[in-house]
């Protein structure tokens, strides 16, 4: 593969995505391998994201590599006013790869253009988080056996949710039918619906969770955050309408699985956790295998 950095899921062809997912399945069978022996990976987290960072660090450690980095920009020279340009030009001398999380949008693309080593975008503000999308795809492929002809219900904050937008764009490469279930204030933005119209994929929008989920192969849950509402009364009205309970799952397909990028707050009631259809913790484990596959692919080691 010619690609060097991974900034956006659109940087990958469908063939490259499938190769990474296939490699992730190999790592799932045999996760501990000395492929990264002698290699150092930097995790530069300019804003905290414990889950993503631990997942990357676990992936590197299982492959025999070493990790250096910082977990919060207040503990790095950024707090002294160093530019991103200078941080990247310095750190790329120490490592074989940079994993970066940064609150500014486009920072990862910029870093990838400066850096002499591959850069993996672990989230740049509200823009892209391609490794999350790849692990979502891996989880869907693994549970459904295919990425084609699936019904995906996206629930919750569809307006600001970066993960649902990326997943929508990625799944639109296959024949997917979408159901968007969101409160009025947090509906899927028009640009994504126009995009689906243009490429001829079906979607359906509703504010009601019950019933519609019976068609789903995948339910993708997201958090409905209070701070997203201009009117707190609106939030109070809808906050319980997008909570999944175990009793709501009785009519759903046997093979249906529930995904969530985590962390969860209250949108999935804990009584769902013991249901075989709950898949979000396995999804987090899949993240480690997927990141192992991404790291090795970008370094040309697999």
């Amino acid at each position, binding site marked *: 593969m010619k690609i060097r950095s991974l900034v*956006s899921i659109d940087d990958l062809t469908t063939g490259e995505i499938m190769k990474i997912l296939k490699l992730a399945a190999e790592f799932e069978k045999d996760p501990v391998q000395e492929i990264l022996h002698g290699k150092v990976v930097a995790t530069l987290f300019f804003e905290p994201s414990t889950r993503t960072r631990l997942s990357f660090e676990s992936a590197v450690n299982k492959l025999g590599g070493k990790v250096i980095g910082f977990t919060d920009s207040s503990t790095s020279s950024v707090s002294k006013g160093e*530019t*991103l*340009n200078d941080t990247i030009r310095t750190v790329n001398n120490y490592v074989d790869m940079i994993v970066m999380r940064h*609150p*500014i*949008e*486009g*920072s990862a*693309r*910029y870093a990838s253009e400066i850096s002499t080593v591959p850069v993996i975008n672990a989230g*740049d*503000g*509200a*823009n*892209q988080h391609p490794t999350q999308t790849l692990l979502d795809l891996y989880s869907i492929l693994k549970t459904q056996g295919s990425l084609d002809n699936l019904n995906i219900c996206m629930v919750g904050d569809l307006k600001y949710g970066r993960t649902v937008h990326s997943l929508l764009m990625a799944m639109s490469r296959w024949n997917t039918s979408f159901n968007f279930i969101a409160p009025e204030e947090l509906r899927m933005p028009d*640009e994504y619906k126009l995009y689906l119209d243009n490429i001829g994929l079906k979607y359906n929008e509703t504010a009601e969770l019950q019933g519609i989920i019976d068609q789903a192969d995948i339910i993708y849950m997201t958090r409905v955050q209070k701070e997203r509402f201009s009117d707190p009364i609106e939030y109070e009205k809808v906050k319980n309408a997008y909570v999944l309970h175990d009793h709501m799952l009785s009519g759903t397909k046997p093979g249906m699985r529930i995904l969530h990028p985590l962390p969860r707050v209250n949108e999935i009631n804990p009584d769902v956790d013991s249901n075989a259809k709950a898949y979000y913790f396995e999804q987090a484990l899949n993240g480690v295998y997927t990141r192992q596959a991404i790291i090795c692919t970008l370094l040309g080691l697999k």
Partner: protein
Amino acid sequence: MKNLTDPKQLLVSAIESGTVIDHIPASTLFKVIKILGLDRIKNQITFGTNLESKTDGKKAIIKIAGKFFEDDDINRIALVAPNAKLNIIRDYQVIEKRVVAVPDTITAIAKCMNPKCITNYEKVTTRFKVVSKKPVALKCHYCEKITDQERLEII
């Protein structure tokens, strides 16, 4: 030289050779000057602004003696003067007329409207893919957000 009797040609014929850029909106004249770097060249330049135009309201015109533009250079003004027309002059005659076309990519001209974009934080040359030409819509190479005509700012 009989073209001098035609008032439309009068302005054009006034330079011996060079380029006349006509139908620039009066409001964007100085942006055009800046984009083309006319404030930094030694050629003789005359311009008029707030001229009456039947089609454009108030228009501006620039005459640059001894200067000929490549398409790639001149298309850079399409964002601010989409209806501009070029007259290429040699020996007082218009030998060629050209219109501007919005290019497929825009580099180092426009500002990304997203306040959270890296290009608004560090010294990064802005780059856009033109996703719509009329009205203009630009997709930022970095933050991937769309800057539309209404929010378009020239650096």
